């Protein structure tokens, strides 16, 4: 077993464990902290996939900005461990788990294993240069590629998001 594979299994264990803890915890603050763990592990995955820029953006945007927003709202609404949010009994959870497991078998079996991927086109150069800021910037701002238009549209989307969040959160007079 080579070291990359060993590292992959360690990271996979931590990421699946923290994801399960997000779902299983009753306290939303703990769920949020396990989600931060999961985001950091995914950033490490991106590093092993030679996507350095995406890994840094993952830490800054997800583990930084989005999780701060989550924790801020949890503490603002004072949701320690409210009684009213206890899970109901009944068939909902078992049925959901059975459906989700069949979904997992479908996507992992049909999509990734049985159909088979074409042979990898990755070269040593593409692995080394793959995720550098320079390559991303050239792809993002090249007028010949579709990403430039999407980038401009994203700026409008973020503007609408900022205005919408202020309008929603503003206290009505």
């Amino acid at each position, binding site marked *: 077993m*080579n070291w*990359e594979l060993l590292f992959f299994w360690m990271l996979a264990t931590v990421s699946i464990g923290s994801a*399960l803890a997000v779902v299983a915890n009753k306290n939303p603050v703990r769920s949020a902290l396990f989600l931060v763990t999961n985001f950091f592990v995914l950033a490490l995955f991106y590093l092993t996939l030679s996507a350095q820029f995406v890994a840094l953006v993952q830490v800054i945007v*997800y583990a930084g900005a989005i999780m701060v927003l989550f924790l801020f709202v949890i503490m603002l609404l004072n*949701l320690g461990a409210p009684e009213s949010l206890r899970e109901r009994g009944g068939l909902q959870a078992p049925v959901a788990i059975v459906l989700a*497991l069949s979904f997992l078998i479908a*996507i992992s079996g049909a999509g990734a294993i049985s159909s088979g991927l074409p042979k990898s086109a*990755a070269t040593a150069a593409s692995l080394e240069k793959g995720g550098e800021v320079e390559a991303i910037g050239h792809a993002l701002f090249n007028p010949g590629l579709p990403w430039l238009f999407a980038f401009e549209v994203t700026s409008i989307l973020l503007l609408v*998001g900022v205005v919408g*969040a202020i309008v929603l959160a503003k206290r009505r007079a």
Partner: protein
Amino acid sequence: MLPVPTEYYLVLSGVLFTIGVIGVLIKRNPIVIFMCIELMLNAVNLSFVALGRHFGHINGQMYVIFVMAVAAAEVAIGLGIIVAVFRTRETINIDEINLLKY
């Protein structure tokens, strides 16, 4: 030759996505449901990056960057909606919030 096969990353991504689906289906707290949606978005991002490496192409990472931008906007709006609903209804139990009006 790739040190870790791409299929491993795809199956891991499927497992993480499924855990997110389970959370969305069984949780009562809309904030935790939001976290599970983030889990699902991250699982898809992982498969994008893994396939981008597999094909030696930058496009996988470009998609991830746009998914992150949309996720940031979505979280800001969604948490704003949750705060607004909590202010008017004094509860965030997802079973009692069955009307968007009022």
